[in-house]
């Protein structure tokens, strides 16, 4: 379960509420960035190919496992990342060619069923290869310290590196879609598949590449989450559901929406966990307050999503077309 590990890694600074708040804000930002890496790929696949891919979390898991293994063997985190990215992208492209390609014309229900089957396959495959015990990844030595971004708030360098990497990827995606030829082709393929095909774009190849890009981002999220969470079979599902919440909140198919949704979900989840117990303790006895706060915090993201869907059924920043 994702919750437990995340809670243990939060450092509480009980003495100064303002500093605690900033710290939790950064934690929320870091979770939001991880979610963004996952949801960018998922929303692309949905927006362009109209496929619900429940197995997206599996590529996150593949990235984490390959990254953890290579890091443990070579001792280099960078090599771990460099191995995890192509592994996740390659696995994604193989799955696209073998299975997903046949699902584009089918309805959502078939896609849910087939990708549900793929989750089972990948979870069991990792159990066969790596066993049932979770793997633990160490934070690379050059990122173990902490940095005082704001005076008085020491913050782990590793988490700052994750945030920075996420911002870099976001910028890269923006440039890719707005400034390059392949980005233009992807957008053309999204708005009218036949027309783009008639104009000489190889749609099949393009879809495979887009899918590979999405799973590559999922793999990156996985390997970066490795040192923060435990690497285990099934780790993809707990984050997958949050990722779906993100893209539904943001508006399916919209990268900007994914960014907004990811940050919102990351902040609501993290701040809820940190501050709901404190707030509720003002009104209720401590044991009672903690129990209720824990359940409210876990539910908060889903409540947020239900509220947004009821008020704006197409999400906050819906894609055009």
């Amino acid at each position: 379960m994702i919750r437990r590990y995340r809670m243990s890694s939060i450092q509480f600074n009980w003495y100064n509420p303002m500093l605690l708040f900033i710290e939790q804000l950064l934690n929320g930002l870091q979770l939001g960035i991880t979610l963004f890496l996952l949801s960018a790929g998922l929303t692309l696949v949905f927006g362009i190919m109209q496929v619900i891919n429940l197995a997206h979390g599996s590529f996150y898991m593949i990235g984490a496992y390959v990254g953890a293994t290579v890091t443990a063997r070579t001792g280099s985190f960078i090599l771990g990342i460099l191995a995890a990215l192509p592994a996740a992208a390659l696995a994604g492209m193989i799955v696209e060619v073998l299975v997903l390609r046949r699902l584009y014309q089918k309805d959502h229900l078939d896609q849910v069923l087939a990708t549900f089957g793929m989750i089972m396959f990948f979870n069991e495959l990792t159990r066969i290869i790596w066993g049932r015990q979770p793997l633990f990844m160490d934070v690379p030595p050059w990122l173990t310290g902490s940095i005082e971004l704001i005076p008085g708030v020491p913050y782990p360098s590793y988490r700052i590196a994750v945030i920075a990497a996420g911002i870099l990827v976001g910028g890269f995606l923006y440039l890719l879609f707005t400034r390059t030829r392949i980005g233009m082709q992807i957008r053309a393929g999204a708005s009218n598949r036949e027309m783009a095909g008639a104009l000489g774009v190889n749609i099949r190849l393009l879809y495979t590449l887009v899918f590979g890009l999405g799973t590559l981002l999922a793999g990156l999220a996985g390997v970066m989450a490795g040192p923060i969470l435990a690497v285990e079979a099934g780790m993809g599902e707990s984050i997958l559901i949050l990722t779906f919440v993100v893209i539904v909140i943001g508006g399916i198919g919209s990268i900007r929406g994914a960014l907004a949704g990811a940050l919102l979900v990351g902040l609501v989840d993290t701040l809820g966990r940190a501050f709901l117990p404190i707030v509720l303790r003002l009104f209720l006895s401590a044991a009672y307050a903690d129990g209720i706060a824990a359940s409210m915090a876990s539910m908060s993201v889903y409540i947020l999503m239900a509220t947004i869907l009821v008020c704006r059924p197409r999400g906050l920043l819906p894609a055009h077309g």
Partner: protein
Amino acid sequence: MVLNRQTLAIATGAVFFLVLPGLAGLAEEPYLVTLFSRILIYALAAVSLDLMLGFGGMVSLGHAAFFGIGAYAVCIFSFHGFEGTPILSWPFQLDGNQSGLVLWPAAVLLSGAAAAVIGALSLRTTGMHFIMITLAFAQMLYYFFVSLEAYGGDDGISLFSRNTLPGIDLGNDIQFYYLCLATLAVFLFFFNRLIHSRFGMVIRGSKENERRMKSLGFPTFRYRLACFIIAGAGAGLAGALIANQTEYVSPGLMHWTRSGEILVMVLLGGMGTLFGPVLGAATLLLLEELLSIYTEHWMIFLGPFLVLVVLFARRGLYGMIAGSSGDHD
């Protein structure tokens, strides 16, 4: 009744389920009775999902929530009944109970009420959003029960003994099996009447073309909501049965992978048919059971099997067995 492949398939199935406890007794495998009780209960949940999925066109990925509510309702009531403590002392006194005559209708009512609230909010959306919002509500309830420490939280809660019913000993596995079979048969009969009634016509019509049904003057939202509630209540009844069968309830019952499994049962068997979900539940659970004899990594075979079913057996297993004379299309 015309004798065709479909009637033959149904009759074979019915006879098989009726004589199963006898067969299990002959083979000296009493475990089979337990296994098939479980199959019947999941079949009930799958049939209820099929009502909204196959006939109403509402793809819900949160059906296990109602299953779990039914199970928890039974467990919490009989927990208090056993302890002799009230469930609520304010605003009114509500005592625990162990009688199935009280508990099972309560489970159905509670899950139906939950379905009414969730349905009223979810049915404002369609398509992918509907899938996701039902999923979100189910996860909300899942985390709610995880944090319910008084009733075991994450670890779940055990039932001290099965509920009581006049004239039936639920503790006896064979009697319990026949009760499940009878419940499923009654539900299937009710289901069959429902889909061929005016109500069922409207539901099926609004799946095909909602706009046309609206312009014909049908308040489709209300019909769909009623369908959602009936499906939720059916799953609640299945939940009440599973709580009695396993004598244990945990939040795992309402995890989203459970919703996925029920969905798989419906699709595997053939959605939009009466008996398809029963066949799907039996196939999936038996396949799990069989594969786990040979390997602990049975999911590595089950996963690709599901993919193959989607790619090559679109109408589900029931469509293959009953042929083109299936219920619909």
